């Protein structure tokens, strides 16, 4: 974990500059909010991956993603928070619901939502979680983010950053999205030859990607 090590070093650096780094026992209001929302988010996520009702899973996903958006706000990244709400809650989840419907997912409790692999998955997940948490906590125990001062994630800051430093990747990304669009259409066409649902699906996925891209562009224009 060399990254963690460097981060630790940096953290030490900041620590002595910002003289007092408050302990965990005296949380600020932001922290409490973050904690609570985080709990909700996590809970929603857990329900998402465990519930037996597929549509409910999608809805709980909405809650989790929304919670994340709030966390972004708390981290003063408002633009990303809105984008999160727009794209994820707005399009991705809708897409997923479309998918559920198109694959005739059963409405209501489906007994076999989880495969026989559940316990293996659980162990692996818990082990990974333990490892990650341990490492992260070990590395950033004392690191302090100071969120005061000018918010670093406002729209103009982000826009400026994007169009000063990230233009080329940004355009490349739009090409990628285009490719994804074409790919989605081709895939769904090939799959069914000339039957109706393929066209509908292509229409379903195509505009979504297209929408994101269009939105991205107008953002850039602004």
């Amino acid at each position, binding site marked *: 974990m060399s990254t963690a090590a460097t*981060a630790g070093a940096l*953290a030490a*650096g900041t620590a002595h500059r910002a003289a007092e780094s408050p302990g*965990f026992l005296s949380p600020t209001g932001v*922290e409490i909010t*973050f*904690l609570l929302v*985080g709990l909700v*988010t*996590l809970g929603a996520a*857990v329900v998402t*991956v465990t519930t037996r009702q597929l549509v409910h899973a*999608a809805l709980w*996903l909405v809650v*989790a*993603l929304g919670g994340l958006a709030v*966390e*972004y706000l*708390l981290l003063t*990244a408002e633009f*990303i928070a809105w984008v*999160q709400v727009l794209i*994820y809650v707005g*399009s991705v989840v809708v897409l997923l619901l479309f*998918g559920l419907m*198109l*694959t005739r997912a059963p409405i209501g409790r*489906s007994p076999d*939502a*989880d495969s026989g*692999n559940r316990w*293996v*998955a659980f162990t692996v*997940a*818990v082990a990974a*979680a333990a490892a*990650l*948490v341990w490492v*992260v906590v070990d590395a*950033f125990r004392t*690191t*302090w*983010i100071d*969120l005061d001062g000018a918010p*670093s*994630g406002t729209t103009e800051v*982000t826009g400026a950053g994007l169009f000063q430093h990230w233009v080329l*990747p940004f355009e490349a990304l739009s090409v*990628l999205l285009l490719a994804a669009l074409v*790919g*989605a259409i081709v895939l769904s066409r*090939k*799959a069914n030859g000339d039957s109706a*649902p393929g066209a509908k699906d*292509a229409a*379903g*996925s195509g505009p979504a*990607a297209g929408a*994101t891209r269009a939105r*991205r562009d107008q953002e850039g224009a602004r």
Partner: protein
Amino acid sequence: MHLAYPAVLAALLFCTGLYGVLARRNAILVLMSVELMLNAVNLNLVAFDAWLSRAAEDTLHSGQALALFTIAIAAAEIGIGLAIVLAVYRNRGTSDIDRLRDTAEGHDPDDPDSDASGRAIPAPAAGEKAEATA
């Protein structure tokens, strides 16, 4: 705010998504779990960006930029993924991951003497020959 909070939350979310990916049967639920994992990463990116932009005077905001890119790519990925899932569903009539076992050993019943079974013969042959000659 302590960096540990978002980091731990991200880790937990990631592992939740991991569990989903490994445990869910329906392909679309797997996709949802993938979204969770992506978001966990995003949270990390944003949190570290917020920290570094102060601690290391980072004016590049690479964290937020990358988070944006991730979101965009995630959208594309969902599109493609769903298309694939639908195609599979149309061909096979199911979107259950563990019904798709074409790579299983000796799966195909239509050509029994495929390479694998063909290669399996010699080892017994040597043994049986030993008995035969005795």
